[in-house]
């Protein structure tokens, strides 16, 4: 038997890697561009999401509203139906990362591919079913494991901040070494990138991302093989793909290299076992085959290919779990009364609809010019984890900015113009007179009033009388809040000189999006102030 590897598939493999690099660079480029660039309106930086049929389907089912941009997902559906899961193998940046690290681990002998065993590839289908059943009952968990959401969140909240902070430390070192002009260039470069570096849970999210990467030590492309619900959805679509793997039985030497090295356990060997739903068309088998026995000829006849075994009993059980997940995820007080800390970005839909649409991708947190948007931990209940909220101690909502509303891929934050945005109230500020410098010490301070962006100001200074512990009387000007004009942007809390626990703070009450998180409704309507 003549031993010769296929040059054609080796070439296709190189081409595939190039395409992967291009799409990965595009992904990072778009994510890096999600920041204030000097223009009030930003180009479509979230376009990757709209090609994701899982997000389209899940948000549609959960919210019962179709978001127009998701029409692009039909392209992915069409391509997958005709060509199979090429989107996984050639385009998906999450897949490319998994493959890259699998490759590294293999090259460094940290991972030795074994013959696959067991039916674990079914996991991802169960994950998909679980998510979709839960969405039917309006619990939207798709963002937790959707690859674009996962990757964008991990990059925006952990990976990019780590790189940016490293760059900043490096700049400091350059200045210390008196390489001033080099330091200046690096500093200006980092400023232009404008990466937010402070994130609650940043460490945790980063660790999770590292964890997913380390799973590639167990199996190549562990995420794509076993976990990815989008991969599962595309797998369900790829039963009729026109290119089907064929092993030339005359050439095959039963070495099993193809099956051992198959990145997604599509089992090219034994002959007839190849699963089109698992194949991502990476062509590793085609190029690794020592005799060039593997080809992917065009075949229109829908030969009944073997599928991943999803037993009916397990499917029913998973669906049942999906149903149970709904009350389980709502075992919290979050729905009972609005959380004071849960200050949603301007344009956010009313909480119930918001949770049905937000896919927790972190794009809004990436674009926020003041780093104000942070991932929620418990304030919105278990289903609201990693959804965005304004944390005024870290950043505030910039007055002439509606970037977060523009980049939201699902419309959970409704797109607003600057003119519309300045009318939105996201909360209300309050003064803690026990800590406020004029109210407590009788000394002058107007920092909150000075920064208040609305015009006329929502913070007014009034003459007051303060008695100090020693009995002296002071009559400083002290801040009071005009609750009706306050928009809850939080710049007052952010700039308050009482550093540890600001003397002025914002809570969510009065937010425009909510009917219930209000007080004295009729009074507002009549006078505009309380």
């Amino acid at each position, binding site marked *: 038997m003549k031993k010769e590897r296929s040059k054609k598939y080796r070439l296709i493999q190189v081409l595939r890697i190039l395409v992967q690099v291009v799409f990965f660079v595009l992904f990072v480029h778009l994510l890096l561009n999600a920041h204030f660039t000097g223009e009030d309106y930003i180009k479509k930086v979230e376009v990757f999401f709209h090609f994701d049929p899982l997000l389209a389907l899940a948000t549609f089912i959960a919210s019962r509203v179709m978001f127009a941009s998701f029409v692009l997902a039909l392209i992915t559906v069409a391509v997958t139906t005709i060509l199979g899961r090429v989107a996984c193998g050639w385009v998906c940046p999450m897949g490319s990362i998994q493959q890259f690290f699998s490759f590294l681990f293999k090259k460094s002998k940290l991972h030795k591919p074994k013959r696959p065993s067991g039916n674990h590839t079914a996991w991802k289908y169960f994950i998909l079913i679980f998510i979709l059943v839960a969405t039917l009952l309006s619990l939207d968990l798709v963002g937790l494991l959707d690859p674009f959401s996962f990757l964008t969140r991990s990059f925006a909240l952990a990976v990019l901040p780590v790189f940016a902070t490293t760059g900043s430390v490096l700049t400091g070192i350059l200045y210390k070494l008196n390489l001033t002009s080099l330091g200046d260039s690096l500093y200006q470069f980092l400023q232009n990138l404008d990466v937010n570096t402070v994130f609650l849970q940043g460490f945790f999210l980063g660790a999770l991302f590292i964890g997913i990467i380390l799973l590639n030590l167990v199996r190549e492309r562990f995420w794509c093989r076993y976990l990815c619900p989008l991969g599962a959805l595309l797998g369900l679509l790829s039963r009729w793909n026109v290119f089907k793997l064929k092993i030339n039985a005359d050439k095959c030497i039963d070495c099993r290299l193809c099956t051992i090295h198959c990145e997604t356990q599509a089992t090219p060997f034994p002959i007839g076992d190849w699963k089109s739903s698992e194949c991502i068309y990476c062509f590793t088998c085609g190029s690794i085959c020592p005799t060039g026995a593997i080809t992917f000829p065009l075949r229109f006849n829908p030969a009944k290919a073997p599928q991943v075994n999803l037993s009916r009993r397990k499917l029913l059980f998973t669906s049942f779990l999906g149903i149970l997940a709904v009350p389980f995820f709502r075992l919290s007080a979050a729905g009972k009364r609005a959380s004071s800390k849960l200050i949603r970005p301007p344009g956010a839909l009313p909480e119930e609809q918001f949770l049905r649409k937000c896919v927790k991708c972190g794009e809004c947190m990436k674009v926020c010019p003041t780093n104000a948007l942070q991932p929620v931990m418990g304030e919105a209940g278990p289903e609201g984890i990693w959804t965005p909220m304004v944390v005024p101690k870290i950043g505030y909502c910039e007055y002439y900015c509606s970037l977060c509303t523009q980049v939201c891929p699902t419309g959970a934050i409704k797109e607003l113009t600057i003119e519309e945005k300045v009318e939105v109230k996201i909360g209300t500020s309050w003064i803690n007179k026990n800590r406020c410098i004029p109210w407590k010490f009788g000394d002058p301070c107007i920092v909150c009033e000075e920064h208040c*962006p609305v015009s006329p100001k929502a913070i007014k200074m009034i003459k007051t009388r303060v008695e100090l512990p020693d009995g002296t009387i002071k009559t400083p000007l002290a801040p009071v809040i005009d609750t009706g004009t306050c928009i809850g942007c939080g710049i007052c809390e952010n700039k308050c000189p009482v550093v540890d626990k600001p003397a002025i703070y914002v809570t969510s009450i009065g937010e425009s999006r909510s009917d219930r998180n209000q007080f004295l409704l009729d009074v507002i309507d009549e006078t505009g102030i309380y």
Partner: protein
Amino acid sequence: MNRRNFLKDIAWGSLLLNVNPGLWAQGKSLPDLAIIQGESPGLIAKEAVAALGGMKKFISRGDKVVVKPNIGWDRKPEQAACTNPDTVKAVIEMCFDAGAKEVKVLDNPCNPAQRTYMRSGIAKAAKDAGADVPFPNNHKLKKMDIKGEWLTSWEVYSDFIEADKIINVPIAKNHSLCKLTMGMKNWLGAIGGNRNQLHQKIDLAMIDLSNFFKPCLTIMDSYRLLVRNGPQGGRLSDVELHKTVAAGTDYVAVDTVGASFFNMKPEELPFLRLAKEKGHGETNLEKLNIEKRTI
């Protein structure tokens, strides 16, 4: 002109004034202050500096100059919260014409610098005029001996320390704490640290910082005056067109002139009163030679 000469001139001026006002009118050719009114913010700034004897009087060939406008807020020029970009541009052009080697424009703003530099129009105007417009760089903060009465030391952007000459280009506007913010208040944008804590003794902070930075020239944009809701305003109804610029070497006097635009007397503004007491400058405009013109 340094402060010593300047004070000498003032002494002479007041002496002459006491002796014979008529003599004073003919005696000096160059004014202490120029107040120029006109349609173009850039042209009036140039005219004002020309009236003071031209930029060559302040900037020498090869100087590294830092121009400090107010770029504090994410507001457009029409909202009059930041220095007029045309004024900044004119100042930079004059510096280069006078032979400056390098002109830097920077400010530590209240909103993110990426936004304020852009929306104020100053970044573009300054770059067009050939200046370097760096963002305030915290790596370059240096703890400096301010030697003030209240502020003994504070973190200052080293761009200001390394410059040969500093030109202050503030805008005059309403401020709820100081009543008015003009040239002296502008120095809060040249420092880092917890600036918001300075508000507890803002007048002393302004005086100490102004005396530390000692600009060789103050050119105060008063083309548009923010008369209410300062220091950042927002509504166009808070802005009045004044179409004026005031320039001089005595920053206390320039701020006094600015106050007069808002019909305020120096006695009403504690920072001016205190600055005068400390001998940092003059607040009695009658003692100064002022050239006031409309072009």
